[in-house]
């Protein structure tokens, strides 16, 4: 039950220090699948870090092309996740390859979890997770196991910053539409 407070002032850049563990102990909100990571000036988000199954690197590059095509073919394929940005990285620690999946979005992950699982299954997003060590094989029918994996591999931020804090992607898109409408209006006035 997120709270968009009227006090959220987008004109004032804001930073938020986050306690170790990722939660403010005195105000942890319970979601259906467990405690919800707090909303910050940089909205909601996650950073999932996991080791990949050795030798699977090429799958990740193949996957990137697939996602590019999937989104081009159906631009609203990820709409339900209420995203701002997603970033995918591969990096090495002592010769082993790790994967990082970082998302910034406007709703706590708990709310639309099953929708996310469904999108993963339908769009091929899953292929990359299936190449991570420990990813549950029955994830398609076992949302709880999927969520457990995500939670166990989530590395919460200890600091987040927003240049225009707490603004949702929907609000940004509305502002840009309004700008375009005004621009169009001015054209018609010529």
């Amino acid at each position, binding site marked *: *039950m*997120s*709270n*968009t407070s*009227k006090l959220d002032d987008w004109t004032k850049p804001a930073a938020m220090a986050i306690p170790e563990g990722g939660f403010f102990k005195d105000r942890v*909100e*319970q*979601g*259906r*699948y467990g405690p919800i990571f707090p909303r910050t000036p940089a909205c909601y988000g996650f950073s999932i870090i996991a080791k990949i199954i050795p030798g699977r690197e090429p799958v990740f590059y193949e996957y990137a092309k697939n996602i590019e095509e999937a989104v081009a073919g159906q631009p609203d394929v990820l*709409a*339900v996740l209420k995203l701002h940005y997603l970033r995918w990285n591969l990096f090495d620690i002592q010769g082993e390859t790790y994967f990082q999946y970082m998302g910034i979005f406007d*709703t706590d992950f708990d*709310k*639309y979890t*099953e*929708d996310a699982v*469904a*999108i993963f*299954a339908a769009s091929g997003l899953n292929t990359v997770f299936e190449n991570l060590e420990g990813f549950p094989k029955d994830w*398609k*029918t*076992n*949302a*709880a196991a999927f969520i457990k994996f995500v939670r166990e591999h989530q590395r919460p931020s200890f600091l987040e910053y927003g240049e225009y804090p707490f603004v*949702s992607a*929907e*609000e940004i898109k509305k502002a840009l539409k309004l700008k375009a409408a005004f621009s169009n209006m001015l054209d018609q006035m010529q």
Partner: protein
Amino acid sequence: MLELDDIQHILLTRVPALTGRYEFLSFRNAAGGRAWLSAIADKVQSAAAIQASINQDKRWVTVAFTWNGLRALGVDEDSLSTFPEEFKQGMVARAEVLGDTGENHPDKWVGGLARPDLHAIVILFARDAAERERCQGEHDKLVAQCEGVEVLSTLDLDATPPIDYAHDHFGYRDRLSQPVIEGSGELPTPGSGAPLRPGEFILGYPDESGQAYPMPQPEILSRNGSYMAYRCMQEHVSRFRDFLRQHGQTPQEQEFVAAKLMGRWRSGAPLVLAPETDDPGLGLDPQRNNDFNYKEMDPHGYAVPLGSHMRRMNPRDTAANMNRRRMIRRGATYGPYLPEDAPEDGVERGIAAFVICASLIRQYEFAQNVWVNDRNFHELGNERDPIIGNHDGTLEFKIPKRPIRKKITGLPAFTTVRGGAYFFLPGITALRHLSTLNAQV
């Protein structure tokens, strides 16, 4: 193929009852509980059984158990551990997820529903008061014969007048939109979508994902069963009527405000199809009263506000995976009718309803957590469901309107949760299995 002779009728059928009674039970000893179940199981009609007899039947009985209740009957720990986590925890433990805080908190619930020794519910729907009284007497006798079976509380149900159609104490027509289960033989009304795979509501069948949802073990206990979330909600009728008067100068304006809160006129006519004036003929016509969408017909909510009850509880084509969030609703009103213009009489009245689904966490809890109580649903910022959301007077309700929307601030709580519980609704075979648990050891 649905095993209709093994599925409790409540899953598939809405019976023509005008009264009813719920009894909430606790089993102080397992043998007594099983003896009670053994006797009452004979009265529980399957979906197949009532197909032929519904027009002659005078009463319909349903039985369901909490997780603690299954344990109290003697279900072993291995089996108990295979039930889903949210069901094991029970509705009380899930209060924060469900928005049951403040006035809705389980500490304030009545009838012993927040107690861990709530074990079972027996639901009686009856054609008339005389039949209810007769059944109540029979059940009293049965309980007296079964050692350790205690009635924690009871609730009498009565249709609210005028009784020629189902509606709640606020006057809204009810039972307008209900999912249809594939294989049930029922046809969806126009606009209601295709029939849904049975696994969305009944354990042991494929669901909309194409798979069957995991079943508790052993299968004899869970096959043809389902989960049932019970909610008893007091409706503050005087407060609701005062609110309408405050925000509408004339009866017509008051009706309009009522319609905006719901998304339908109280007659049942949907605002998408009747945006300016009520159309009672449309409201009562099942071939037309559900035949609309939002994405094309009302994207901005000029007819049905984005935050209205109906648009939250069934966002239709504006939500992802809608077919995985559908629920079957059953229930009735309780408490006396408060005549129009009568002052508040201090008597409690409301709705005592069941939501039936295969996954409480994916269907019922999602609806409650996101659709009902997410303040930022559809980017609304500071709203909850105006009828059943958790309200403390600080939230608002926005009515889209050209050129400028209307914003009502300080929305009062029109309803208060008075109790609730998660029940498992076993199939007919499972009821017999449960009643003979000891004999199997």
